[in-house]
């Protein structure tokens, strides 16, 4: 084995040149790129975290607003329902009252008309019965007979009705 100082020195210089060249041309620039990329990624992550937080805040706000709106809506619905129920009752009561009044009025009117018609019919019938009886019997009826006949016929008519 031939150990030569000049060859050792040559190889030390050779290796040192490669270290220097790789340091300058490869390691430092690539590591600089790594650092900048890491920085960008860190910034991106920070921005993403911030955005996520903002999104979470907005979501929270939205939820609280939604809850408030729901509460308000329920309140409004409840109030409306109460008011509607109240109104319904009032309207129904009014309607019932009106209907009753109209019914009563109609009934009264009907009763009057009925009474009037009955009276008129009674009169007409009485006249007709008397006429018919006079024609059939050929005899004039006295007042007592006529009234008895009328009552009988009326009862029949009312029964028929």
């Amino acid at each position: 084995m031939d150990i030569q100082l000049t060859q050792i020195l040559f190889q030390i210089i050779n290796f040192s040149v490669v270290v220097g060249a790789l340091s300058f041309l490869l390691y430092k620039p690539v590591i600089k790129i790594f650092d900048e990329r890491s920085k960008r990624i860190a910034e991106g992550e920070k921005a993403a975290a911030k955005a996520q937080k903002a999104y979470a805040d907005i979501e929270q706000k939205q939820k609280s607003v939604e809850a408030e709106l729901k509460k308000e809506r329920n309140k409004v619905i409840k109030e409306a329902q109460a008011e509607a129920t109240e109104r319904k009752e009032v309207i129904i009561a009014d309607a019932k009252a009106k209907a009753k009044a109209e019914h009563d009025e109609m009934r009264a009117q009907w009763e009057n008309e009925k009474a009037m018609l009955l009276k008129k019919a009674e009169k007409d019938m009485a006249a007709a019965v008397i006429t018919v009886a006079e024609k059939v019997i050929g005899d004039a009826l006295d007042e007592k007979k006529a009234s008895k006949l009328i009552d009988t016929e009326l009862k029949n008519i009312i029964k028929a009705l």
Partner: protein
Amino acid sequence: MAAGLHISISAETLLNVGGIAITNSMLTSLVVSGLIIAFAIIVRLQLKDTNSPRGLQNFAEWIVESLHNLVHSVTGDLKKTRLFLPFIGTFLLWILFNNWLGLLPGVGTIRMIENSTEVHEAASAEKATEGEMHSSVVGQVYAVEGEEPVSTHEEVLELVVDEGEMHLEESDDTHMDVMAGEVHEELEQGAEEHHVKAVPIFRPGTADLNTTIALALVSVFLTQVFGVQALGLSYFKKYINFSNPIMTFVGFLETISEFAKVISFAFRLFGNIFAGEVLLVVISSLVPIIAPMPFYGLELFVGFIQALVFAMLSLVFFNMATQSHDEH
């Protein structure tokens, strides 16, 4: 078959530049350095600050990130990780590619014919001591051709044959005929074996002890540098401590261990890679087809493991050096 084997424990000189012998392992490690630097330059030119890297940048980022995570898993401190990363990363990549380059076809097999005077002289001197006829004749040839050394195989053979014939003319002894024939044959063989030396152009950088010693020295030197940087001069209390006899002895052991580190680093890497090279050469020369394949797979694995072991051990030593003695 065995004639094709070329195993040399030390790296072989290819050429001399300004008095510095450039060996085949130096050339390979220069090629590796060049390739790594070229890759780094291409990556640097293509780097873009993007969140979705593609192609080469993606690959380079994967390498750097893996190395960063590896170093950080040991240090647990970003500052230390950033400080150690260039050295640990380069140790790993440089050693790995030096190891793996030795497995490429052509490395160790593409050879250059070496034709230096020193080699011929060394070879002839070596043979002369063995007392072989052809070597002594070659020695004479060089003695004759002292002013103008022979440089090629053909020239050596021609001169030796001429010399043989000269001896034959001087003597009528028939024995000399036989001897001249033997000399010629031996010279032909001997010249091939010793004088015309085929040197592999490439040899794995880490299969040369000089390279592994250099790496080990860098690692141990950096350990001291990081230690002093982190702890100041109190770092040396680790080695020189006269507070009590036990600590003095421990300091002595620590000092020895630093030298042991250089030796263990250097010989572990060199031994593994050189042994792998020898294994591949022997297997390939015995059974050139299919049989070497599992060994290539094994050497790929060994190459990676050795690079990782060197880098991880260096990292652990760096990290330990930056921790105060109380933390130990």
